[in-house]
């Protein structure tokens, strides 16, 4: 080493230093990163760090009103599950309900009051304070009220129930306005009307799917989107597998196989809009075979005379043998149940169709029976939404009013009619004529962008409220919703906003509460005082605490036996006309079947990324819209999957890729509702197409509801293609034995034990 050169030495020193540095840095980089323990300056009283607290409240993602339990830690909501005590959800919850967390934590939420600065619809707003925002609205309302023109104020809300609905009533009454409307696209107007006509009740009955043996569903996707899917799914499960010796059988009649159709034992496509005719054909068979033994059977026979099996088979496209078999099984399965709704209720003959379904239930004695159709009692507390629900006709009248300058202030509450009304209604143009539009929405949806003042409300997880589920569960119940987290942003509860406006208007005598919580307590005191036997030992405060803890209140009463006989004129009114469609079948060869999406409902959930990435249960498509078409039809037209097509009705045109779906009638095309937003946050905006936009303004005459299944369309290929994003490969079995089928005679099918293996019985 004596002959080491200077240059060599320097090299070694350099190498050594770099090595040491690198070694030091290596150890440093693999060290556990520093984490901090951050104490509270003052500990919160409501929770202990690391300890989970569950709060019971009510889901508002659809109108079913399921009870939910929200898991919170450190004051943050972490997970939503079903409330086991709530008779509607019984501890279960659907995907939409679980995604409620993304409503709360959505990055596109409105975080504080806004005032419009640019032109209306330009989307430019500036932040303001609550005082300023409320003053702007309050002053205008005060002026109108003082001038006796309170009726020029309109309140358009999503369907709300309970004391908030009551508060809206009071507020508008004090203003002197009758223009209080609830609007939801999916509200089953025809179902209510059919029950009113047949049973004389303005309420939905309880459908006892749980205890039935044989269910005929005329177009009602009861597992996917129809009125109370979670509760129906519970009943479905119990009917199928919950009873040791009985396996409920389910038949689904609809032009396009829905989730319920896929789960049914038998799926029967009838010509769209002829479901009621099919029901009457079955009724005809029952009466003429002597299965109905009531005193008025001659009357029934006379009314049903035109609906002979052959006639009905020709109209509906269902074989005569199938009609008689369905009718016979329906009679001989005790109890059986027929339900109807969804697409079948969305035709020009919607009410008549659903009355025909009620008639089926009556003829075999399913009314008021376990496993059949049970009447609901009057709500014990608060208001329900239906009496205020606006039909399409009402919305058109409202738009006319606005165009004529009869409406000076419009208050919007979480409803989005610009998106959920057909383009033919011209609603956004009508809104332009209203001088002041106030929105209480939590998100910048299509309608809220047209507002002048935005006073954003809390999400349902931050609000006080209560609910009376519709349909009920056969006995009186009510549920209370409470904030599960402190408000994330500078928002306020809808009820609190209305109460503050009431204070400003000096109508505090009629509306004496300062907060929504106070209003609720005042209302629920009536239930407390109504004489529960333990009233004397329990103070109201402990009643209230117990109520909040359970999240739900109910009285399981013995329902009295109902004997129901329809009046003569009701029987006379039975009869279903052929459905009317707008557009000629030559120009528009297809019938458009839009359906409420299991994931987005009427489009309100399109801003939730969890729902966007949830594969549709039948097509497995994520993030987008599609048009379902029968493969045979597509072959005729020379179209393949992924072909971008224009769906054109007499009232507009939208573009979406084609999806080949074998379980749809050849002359029908289907599209899910929910996508196609042009506002509503980063996840919803400019994604897919909205089929509501092109619907024909065809009305159901009895309710004035939109006949949303009655639009004819044509399919125009654009020559462009896209790749549909979906998780599924082929929908076919390809001989892999995944779905086994076995031919069985009807009699044998009854005896088959099918609880354990997934076998579909094909009745021959």
């Amino acid at each position, binding site marked *: 080493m004596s002959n080491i050169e200077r240059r060599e030495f320097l090299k070694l020193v350099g190498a050594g230093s770099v090595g040491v540095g690198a*070694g030091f840095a290596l*150890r440093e980089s693999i060290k556990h990163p520093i984490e901090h323990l951050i104490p509270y300056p003052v500990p919160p009283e409501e929770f202990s760090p690391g300890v989970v607290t569950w709060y019971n409240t009510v889901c508002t993602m659809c109108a079913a009103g399921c009870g939910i339990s929200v898991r919170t830690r450190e004051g943050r909501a972490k997970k939503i599950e079903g409330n086991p005590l709530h008779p509607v959800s019984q501890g279960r919850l659907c995907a939409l309900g679980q995604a409620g967390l993304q409503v709360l934590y959505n990055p596109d939420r409105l975080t504080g009051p806004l005032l419009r600065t640019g032109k209306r619809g330009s989307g430019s707003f500036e932040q303001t304070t609550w005082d300023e925002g409320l003053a702007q609205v309050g002053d205008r309302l005060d002026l109108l009220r003082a001038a006796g023109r309170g009726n020029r104020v309109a309140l358009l809300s999503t369907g709300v129930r309970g004391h908030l609905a009551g508060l809206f009533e009071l507020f508008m009454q004090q203003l002197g306005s009758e223009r209080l409307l609830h609007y939801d696209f999916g509200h089953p107007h025809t179902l209510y009307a059919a029950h009113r006509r047949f049973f004389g009740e303005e309420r939905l009955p309880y459908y006892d799917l749980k205890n039935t043996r044989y269910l005929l569903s005329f177009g009602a996707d009861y597992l996917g989107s129809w009125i109370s899917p979670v509760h129906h799914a519970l009943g479905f499960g119990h009917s199928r597998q919950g009873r040791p010796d009985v396996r409920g059988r389910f038949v689904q009649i609809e032009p396009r196989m829905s989730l319920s159709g896929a789960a049914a034992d038998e799926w029967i496509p009838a010509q769209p809009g002829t479901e009621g005719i099919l029901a009457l054909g079955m009724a005809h068979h029952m009466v003429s075979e002597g299965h109905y033994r009531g005193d008025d059977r001659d009357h029934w026979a006379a009314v049903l005379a035109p609906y002979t099996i052959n006639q009905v088979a020709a109209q509906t496209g269902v074989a005569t043998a199938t009609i008689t078999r369905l009718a016979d099984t329906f009679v001989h399965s005790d109890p059986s149940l027929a339900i109807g709704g969804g697409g079948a209720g969305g035709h020009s003959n919607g009410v008549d169709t659903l009355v025909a379904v009620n008639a089926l239930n009556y003829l075999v004695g399913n009314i008021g029976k376990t496993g059949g159709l049970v009447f609901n009692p009057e709500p014990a507390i608060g208001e329900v939404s239906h009496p205020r629900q606006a039909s399409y006709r009402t919305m058109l009248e409202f738009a006319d009013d606005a165009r004529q300058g009869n409406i000076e202030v419009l208050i919007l509450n979480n409803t989005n009619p610009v998106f959920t009304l057909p383009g033919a209604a011209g609603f956004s143009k009508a809104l332009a004529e209203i001088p002041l539009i106030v929105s209480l929405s939590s998100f910048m949806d299509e309608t809220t962008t047209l507002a002048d003042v935005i006073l954003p409300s809390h999400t349902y997880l931050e609000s006080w409220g209560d609910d009376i589920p519709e349909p009920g569960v056969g006995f009186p119940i009510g549920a209370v919703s409470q904030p599960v987290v402190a408000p994330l942003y500078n928002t306020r509860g809808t009820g609190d906003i209305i109460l503050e406006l009431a204070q400003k208007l000096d109508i505090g005598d009629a509306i004496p509460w300062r907060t929504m919580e106070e209003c609720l307590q005042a209302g629920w005191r009536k239930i407390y005082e109504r004489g529960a036997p333990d009233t004397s030992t329990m103070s109201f405060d402990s009643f209230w605490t117990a109520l909040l803890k359970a999240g739900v209140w109910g009285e399981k009463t013995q329902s009295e036996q109902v004997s129901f006989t329809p009046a003569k004129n009701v029987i006379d009114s039975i009869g279903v006309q052929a459905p009317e469609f707008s557009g000629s079948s030559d120009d528009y060869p297809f019938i458009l079947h839009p359906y409420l999406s299991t994931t987005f409902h009427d489009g309100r959930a399109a801003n939730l990324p969890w729902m966007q990435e949830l594969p549709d249960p039948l097509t497995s498509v994520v993030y987008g819209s599609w048009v379902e078409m029968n493969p045979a039809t597509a072959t005729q037209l020379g179209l393949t999957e992924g072909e971008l097509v224009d769906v054109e009705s007499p009232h507009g045109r939208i573009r979406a890729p084609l999806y080949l779906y074998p379980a749809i009638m050849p002359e029908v095309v289907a599209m899910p509702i929910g996508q196609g937003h042009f506002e509503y946050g980063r996840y919803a905006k400019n994604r897919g197409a909205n089929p509501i936009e092109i619907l024909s303004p065809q009305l159901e005459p009895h309710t004035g509801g939109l006949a949303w299944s009655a639009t004819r369309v044509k399919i125009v290929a654009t020559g462009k293609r896209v790749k549909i994003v979906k998780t599924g490969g082929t929908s076919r079995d390809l001989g892999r034995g995944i779905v086994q089928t076995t031919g069985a005679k009807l009699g044998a099918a009854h005896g088959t034990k099918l609880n354990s293996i997934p076998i579909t019985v094909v009745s021959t």
Partner: protein
Amino acid sequence: MNVSIVPALRVLKPAVLVGAVAFLGLVVGYWANAAFFPGTSPQQPINFSHKIHAGDYEIPCMYCHTNARRSISAGVPSVNKCVGCHNEVATERPQIRKLMNYWHNKEPIPWIKVHDLPDFVHFTHKRHVQAGIECQTCHGAVETMDVITLGTAASKTSGVTLASAPAMKMGVCLDCHKQHEVENGLDCWTCHK
């Protein structure tokens, strides 16, 4: 033909030497970091001494770490709690003045976490405390420590004594679970779920 690598080595000799020295440096650097900067007793924002509180004054652990018996995390006392005593006690000491500064500004004290399990381990204080396990079993003799020190692999091999905390490694958990015959104590998903 005869091939030898010797000529090649001769050519590469300077490079090999440089490489060897660099590697030696790497080892030295790594060791130096481990020996002199172990990170097992980090400098805290306030020089809080467990020896004074838990040792000399015998304040029970759960007077401050109240949540240990009912939560998955033992929790760190709120500033409010410290001030509860130090409004009266030792108010003139510089470290207490620091504390009062935090309190007056309503700011939390950014303590540095010493005992930290990886995120893939599900550990709950509640179960262990309720089963009667002493805090010192895992955390060492905290009442003797002026500065909280994390146990290292060395303290494990030298035998777990109360004076030094064991390294919080899986073996330590399993040994204890075995010794106490914990139900499902050796299942993977008891801790990794």
